[in-house]
């Protein structure tokens, strides 16, 4: 009984703490404001009204009724963006076919996932909730905002963000389909043909619909082609409505997908993981493809054996728009630290390093006009740090999403669960030292030897 009362009490506390899902008003006073796009402004205020940044300047007047936050001595930066994660979704892989463009992680959003809060406690306000890497053409992904506290999955969607889709090259689709199911692709040659076949079929599909749409008003006998959400999604990639985010590691397969995209006129392409991106950085830059990488993960599988932690720096120096992602409920908690590693490995400047977790992932998700820097007119997504965010000693103090405080270290209850099992004395103990297999979540074990990424 006590447990039940506790959980009800907590829910009330949580609701009052997190407030309503209206867009918030807040004035962050006197911080060191790292804008990303317009330099670092000392002793500067940031005013957020109705969820949007309305003013950045010194000694701003507090509009009546607006909450004030004293950021004296603190660093104020744009909310961190993770271009590759699997938090806040209940399903990751539809590992039943090499092509599953019809499925959508946005149909499996779980607003109760504790990982959302933990990400907020690391300053992360948005993430790209991705399909896994079991299929050459996986499912569509959802760009979410970390409104932890809401029970409604709809509140997490970043309305207006472009559609994205997960592709995958190399070992994972080869292992799941070739080795696991005895069907194409078993090799990197097969992976290429999966794309060429899928896009060719999509072109036929588009033509059939075009023909029907052209004649349906004049020809009463015209009949509509059979609708296929799979083919329609592929068609939407061809028309540029959907951005490809492709799990990839080796240089040859990266070049392959760029060639396929060139042949089909596809321009919006972000490579994920892309451990050997550094080897083809000039080609990536020429194509205009972007890269979302790990700071230092390597050697967990053969296709990442010839990696270097200098990847992000080499890509950046070659003009490739690069981000650092987590792909992990653990790493997402300290992306600011992961970005800092590019200063050890390649001497990126503070602003270059912080761009890897702010404006650059925003560009990769097609939302750079909304988030990723502190500018008037942009969303009120802010992370406040004690210490410089690239220092190992930095501690996130407050994280604001659309003007609403979603994490405050000074009002941080020990237990922030939203789904409490009143039967439980103490919640279950989980020991998960490493999380290397998120991209392969939901894939049956028989398909895998070791199932990392």
């Amino acid at each position: 009984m006590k447990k039940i009362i506790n959980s009800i009490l907590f829910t009330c506390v949580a609701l009052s703490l997190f407030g309503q899902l209206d867009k918030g008003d807040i004035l962050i006073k006197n911080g060191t404001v790292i804008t990303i796009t317009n330099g670092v402004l000392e002793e500067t205020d940031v005013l957020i009204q109705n969820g949007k940044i309305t003013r950045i300047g010194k000694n701003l007047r507090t509009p009546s009724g607006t909450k004030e936050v004293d950021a004296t001595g603190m660093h104020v930066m744009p909310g961190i963006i993770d271009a590759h994660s699997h938090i806040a979704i209940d399903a990751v892989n539809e590992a039943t076919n090499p092509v599953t463009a019809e499925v959508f992680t946005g149909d499996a959003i779980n607003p109760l996932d504790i990982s959302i809060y933990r990400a907020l406690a690391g300053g992360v306000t948005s993430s790209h909730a991705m399909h896994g890497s079991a299929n050459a053409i996986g499912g569509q992904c959802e760009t979410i905002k970390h409104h932890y506290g809401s029970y409604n999955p709809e509140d997490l969607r970043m309305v207006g963000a472009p559609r994205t889709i997960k592709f995958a090259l190399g070992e994972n689709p080869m292992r799941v389909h070739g080795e696991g199911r005895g069907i194409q692709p078993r090799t990197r040659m097969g992976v290429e043909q999966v794309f060429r076949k899928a896009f060719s079929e999509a072109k036929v599909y588009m033509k059939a619909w075009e023909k029907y749409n052209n004649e349906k008003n004049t020809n009463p006998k015209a009949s509509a082609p059979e609708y296929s959400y799979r083919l329609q999604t592929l068609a939407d990639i061809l028309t540029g409505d959907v951005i490809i985010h492709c799990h990839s590691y080796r240089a040859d397969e990266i070049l392959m997908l760029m060639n396929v995209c060139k042949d089909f006129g596809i321009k919006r392409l972000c490579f994920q993981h892309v451990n050997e991106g550094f080897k083809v950085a000039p080609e990536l830059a020429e194509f205009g493809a972007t890269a979302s990488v790990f700071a230092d993960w390597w050697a967990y599988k053969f296709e990442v054996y010839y990696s270097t932690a200098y990847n992000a720096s080499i890509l950046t120096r070659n003009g490739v728009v690069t981000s650092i992602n987590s792909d992990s409920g653990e790493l997402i908690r300290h992306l600011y630290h992961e970005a800092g590693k590019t200063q050890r490995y390649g001497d990126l400047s503070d602003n270059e390093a912080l761009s890897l977790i702010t404006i650059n992932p925003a560009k990769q998700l097609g939302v750079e006009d909304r988030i990723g820097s502190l500018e008037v007119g942009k969303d009120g997504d802010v992370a406040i740090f004690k210490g410089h965010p690239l220092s190992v000693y930095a501690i996130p103090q407050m994280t604001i999403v659309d003007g609403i405080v979603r994490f405050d270290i000074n009002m941080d209850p020990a237990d922030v669960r939203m789904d409490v099992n009143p039967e439980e004395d103490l919640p279950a103990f989980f020991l998960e030292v490493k999380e290397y297999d998120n991209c392969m979540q939901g894939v049956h074990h028989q398909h895998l030897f070791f199932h990392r990424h």
Partner: protein
Amino acid sequence: MKFTIKILAFLMLGLSTLSTYGQQVSKPVRGTFALTNATIETITNGSVQGTLVIENGNISAIGPNVAIPPDAKVVDCSGLFVYPGLIDGGTQLGLVEVSSVSLTADANEIGDIKPEMQALTAVNPNATAIPVTRVEGVTTTLVAPVGGTIPGTASLINLVGYTPDQMFAGFKGVVVNYPSAGRRGRRDRRTDEERKKQEEKQLKKLNDLWDNLSLYHKLDSAAKAGSGEDLDYNPKMEALLPVIRGEMPILLEVNQASAIESAIKWVGEKKVKAIFTGVAEGWRVADKIAAANIPVVTGPVFSMPTRTSDRYDTPYANAGKMHKAGVKVAIRSNDTENVRNLPYNAGFAAAYGMGKEAALKAVTIVPAEIFGVADRLGSLEKGKSATLFVTDGDPFETKTHVKHLFIDGWNVPLDSRHIRLYNEFLERSPGLEK
């Protein structure tokens, strides 16, 4: 003609590949060195401005006014800092090359009780990850087998040398996974009851093993004293004899609070020398660990809270909370290819309550003491091994760079596959042209 050029180019490529094959990184050299004008962070005797002299593999002098031997190579360390090599109290470095390629992974032998499995046997001195690790200042690692109730015997190694014996740093311990009813991860679908049953079964197995071991010890002592029969070949018991004799500690991997409490009792009952490892929920029972006077190697600091109800920062704060309660705490990465992140594990522990000084000790002198090698490693003192690195700043900060590296007196070049790939590809040639 074009074809001939292609063949020539191919042959030359082949030759250049051949000439570098086997040569992973440039060679370490030994000699007499004087690191001058340095800020020397001794760990045990504060910070010293001056010179550190390396001779015959050891530190022969430290101080503001020390005589520089005439044959010494002088390394000007103005504006730089000298630290003792960082010690990682738990890794699989060298045992696993590529973890998903099972035939390159030597950490987990078949069987449940296998103390005779020696990590030192399977350490690959030429593992690609070894240079990658040491160039970031991690010079010494405990290499531990995994899997089963007793995965095998772990060894401490220095990250220089061409044979495991050259690398051996003077400590071995038998790894024991203490039974626990905790879930191993989200995929662990066993019911509470099943897990509890399995825990009891495993604990019984461990206790039975210890009963057999006591008996074996008595028979062995009698045989050695000439008053009993020679014993049959029993590698498992042989490997455990040093433990029951009190000559070798066990590395008892235990994480769940209730299991830690149970393990404290078990260690007391069996009168075994134990080092607790993992200890993810140590913060819940820190006073009890302190009272039992059992040293701890905890980590990784970069891990998830063990319960959904826990504060987000419990893994960051765990080491500091145990330290404050009086537990002797070292920090490990528990990693394979990214043991280089040990200083960042320590940095996060420092930020979340442990403080810089204690965190630095937790990756230097404390693990050296726990492993009984503090006479050689863990601090910068005259007579100790010249295992140290020179930086341009705080070794926990990502902005800092390692400038010089010495392991066991060897001046190790700052060279690794990661650095070589950087040098080759930062400005690739040819670039876009054919």
